[in-house]
C-alpha cells in the first residue's frame, strides 16, 4: 500500500525532477515507559511522511503543536534517528550514515530556529558565532575567516561593525539575521527554517522574509519552511504540506492552495487564522473546532482528525483514509473530491459559523 502511495505521490509532487531533499515513508516513534509495570506507550510523532523538495524551491510544512513538523525537520537533519523510512540528499540515502560521515553532509543542510535568543550562545561574539561553522568545516582560517564572516554579515544586511558585538546587544531581527548568516556560512543547498519569524515583531518579519527570498534567488537555496501561519505561507512558498498528528493531510502547490483547500483540517486551519481585514473577517466562514489536538500517544482510530472534524461520518472512525490524489493534489480524507465537499468552502459568500458541539 505504501509503495503505491509513494508512486502516486511522485506523480503529483515529482514535478521537480532530481529533488535536492527527499523523505520517504518517514516514521518517528518515541517509546515512553511510565512506571515499572506500566505497558510501554509510544508517541507517534511522525507516521509515514513522504515529501520532496526541489532545488531553490520552498516547501512549507504547516500545522499546530504536536503535528510532527519539528520532528520532521529534526529527522531530515538527522538530528533524530527516524524509526523507519529514508532520507535522501541529492538522491543519496543518508538515513543510516554514521556520525563521522555525517559532518560533511551537514554542509549541504542547515537549520534556522524560531528563537534567536535561545539558538545563539550569549558568550560568543558575532564573529565567533558565524565563524564557527566555517572553522568546523575547515573552509577558511585566520584573517580569511574573519573576512568571510564580514562578507556574510554584509549579505544578511548587517555591517562589519557587528563582528565584535555580542547577541545581547542586538535586536530580535538582527539576531535572526546572525542565525541566517551562520546557516549560510557553509553555502548549503537546503535551509530548514523552523518558525523563523514567529518570535519577531510584525514590522521586522517582512524584513527577514525578504532576506530569505533574496538569498534563495542569489544562492539557489531550497527551504523547508515550518510554520503555523498559513497567511504567510501562502505568500512565500511553492508547495504546502498540511500536517495533523504526525501525518500529511494535504499536499499541494501553493497556487492551488490559494484557490481552495480540500481537507477539512486545512479548511479549519485557514478559517481560524485571523485576517487583518475587518470586512473579510465579518463575512468569512469561520469554523471553530471543538477540543484540542488529541494526544499523539493515542491517536484516534480511523481518520486521526475524525474526533474534531465537523463533517465526520461513521466510516471516519473505522477506516483510516489513504493520502490519495484528488485533482491537483494529495488529500487524506474519505470524502475529498466529492462534489460540494468540504461544505463550508462551497457556501460562497454565505456566513457559516460553527459552534463547538
Amino acid at each position: 500500500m505504501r509503495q503505491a502511495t509513494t508512486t502516486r505521490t511522485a506523480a503529483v509532487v515529482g514535478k521537480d525532477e532530481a529533488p535536492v531533499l527527499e523523505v520517504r515513508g518517514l516514521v518517528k516513534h518515541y517509546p515512553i515507559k511510565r512506571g515499572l509495570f506500566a505497558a510501554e506507550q509510544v508517541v507517534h510523532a511522525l507516521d509515514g511522511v513522504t515529501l520532496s523538495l526541489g532545488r531553490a524551491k520552498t516547501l512549507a510544512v504547516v500545522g499546530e503543536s504536536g503535528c510532527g513538523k519539528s520532528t520532521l525537520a529534526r529527522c531530515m537533519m538527522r538530528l533524530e534517528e527516524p524509526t523507519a523510512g529514508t532520507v535522501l540528499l541529492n538522491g543519496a540515502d543518508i538515513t543510516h550514515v554514521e556520525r563521522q560521515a555525517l559532518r560533511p553532509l551537514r554542509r549541504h543542510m542547515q537549520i534556522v530556529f524560531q528563537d534567536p535568543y535561545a539558538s545563539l550562545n550569549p558568550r560568543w561574539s558575532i564573529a565567533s558565532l558565524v565563524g564557527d561553522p566555517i572553522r568546523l568545516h575547515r573552509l577558511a582560517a585566520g584573517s580569511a575567516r574573519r573576512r568571510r564572516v564580514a562578507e556574510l554579515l554584509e549579505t544578511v544586511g548587517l555591517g562589519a561593525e557587528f563582528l565584535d558585538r555580542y547577541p545581547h546587544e542586538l535586536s530580535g531581527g538582527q539576531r535572526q539575521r546572525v542565525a541566517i548568516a551562520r546557516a549560510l556560512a557553509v553555502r548549503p543547498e537546503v535551509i530548514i527554517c523552523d518558525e523563523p519569524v514567529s518570535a519577531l515583531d510584525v514590522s521586522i518579519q517582512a524584513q527577514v522574509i525578504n532576506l530569505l527570498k533574496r538569498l534563495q534567488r542569489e544562492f539557489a537555496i531550497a527551504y523547508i519552511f515550518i510554520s503555523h501561519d498559513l497567511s504567510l505561507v501562502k505568500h512565500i512558498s511553492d508547495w504546502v504540506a498540511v500536517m495533523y498528528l504526525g501525518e500529511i493531510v494535504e499536499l499541494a502547490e501553493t497556487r492551488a492552495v490559494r484557490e481552495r483547500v480540500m481537507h477539512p483540517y486545512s479548511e479549519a486551519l485557514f478559517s481560524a487564522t485571523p485576517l487583518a481585514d475587518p470586512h473579510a473577517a465579518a463575512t468569512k466562514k469561520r469554523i471553530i473546532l471543538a477540543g484540542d489536538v488529541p494526544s499523539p500517544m493515542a491517536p484516534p482510530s480511523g481518520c486521526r482528525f475524525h474526533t474534531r472534524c465537523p463533517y465526520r461520518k461513521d466510516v471516519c472512525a473505522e477506516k483510516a483514509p489513504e493520502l490519495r490524489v484528488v485533482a491537483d493534489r494529495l488529500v487524506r480524507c474519505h470524502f475529498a473530491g466529492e462534489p460540494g465537499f468540504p461544505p463550508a468552502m462551497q457556501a460562497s459568500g454565505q456566513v457559516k459559523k460553527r459552534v463547538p458541539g
Partner: protein
Amino acid sequence: MTSRTPVLEVDGLSVEFRTVRGVVRAVDDLSFSIGEGETVGLVGESGSGKSTAALALLRLVSDPPGRITAGRVRLDGRDLLPLSDAEIRKVRGRQVAMIFQDPMMALNPVFTVERQIGEVLRLHLGLPKRRIFGEVVDLLRLVGVPAPEDRARQYPHNLSGGMRQRVMIAMALACRPRLLIADEPTTALDVTVQAQVLELIQSLKERLGMAVLLITHNLGIVAETAHRVAVMYTGQKVEEGAVADIFDDPRHPYTKGLLRAAKWEGAKEGALHEIPGVVPSPFEMPQGCSFHPRCGDVIPRCRQALPGLADVAPGRPVRCFVAQGDV
C-alpha cells in the same frame, strides 16, 4: 465616538522608569476610554509601552524603578490612582481582571484549579468554603471546560495550553469584573485553540456586559474582535479610530506600514512591504517624531518637533504632521 457609558477613562497617563542609564518614559501622555460591552485593541510592537500601560492602570508597575508621573485613570467615574494600597487591591481581581499570555506563569503549579479559583472567590466575595467547589465548577462550565468536576481537582500541569487559558479566564471572571484586560491572551496558543479562546472572550463579554482592553501585536485578532483600536509606538498613541476606519484608511505612516506588513503586501511583486530599520532604543530616542527615521513620508519638520495628536476626521486622532496637513 463612544456613545456607550464609559467604564474606563484614561487621561494623560505617563509612566517613567529610572535606570542606571537614565530616565525612560515608557508610556507618554496616553489617553483612551472603553465603554460598556466594548472591546478596544491596544496595538504595538515590543517596547511600544502597551503592556506597561495596562499594568499602570492597576498600579502594578513596581516602584522603584517605575513611577506613574502624570495622568488620571477612572473606573466607572472613580479615580484609581489616588486610592490606598488596600483599596486598589480590592479593585484588582474584583472590578478589573487581567489575563496574560502565558497561563502557566500566572497559575500556581502546586495548587489545584479549585484552590486557585476558590481563593479569588473567598478573598473578593467572601464565599463560604462549602459553596466554593460548586461555584468553581459553574465557572469552569461557563468557560467551556469539559468535565469541570474532574478538572477542578487537577493541577495546571495536567491541562493543555488552551485549557489553562480557560482556567485563567474563569479565574478572571470569578467576580464578574467591569473591565477585562487581556494582554496577548492567545499568543502562546495554536490557531485553532486561539479561535476558541477569542470566541469565548467575545461571548462572555456580551453576556456579562464587560469592557475589554485587548493588548496584542496581531492586527488580525484586532480586526476580528475589537470595535476600536489605538496604535502605540515608543510609548505614545500615534493613531486611534474605529476598527473599520483604521483598516480601510490608516493615516499614520506607522499604521500604514504595519497593515501592509500584516497583509503580506508586495508578495506578488517579489518583495514584501517592510518598515525599514528598528524601533529606537529608549535611551537613544530621535529628535522630533520618534518614527521619523523609519518613515517614508518624512518632512523637515518631523526631525525637529514632536507632532501632537490632532483629529484628522471625527474620532480619528493622529500624531503626524503630514497626515494632519492632509485635511
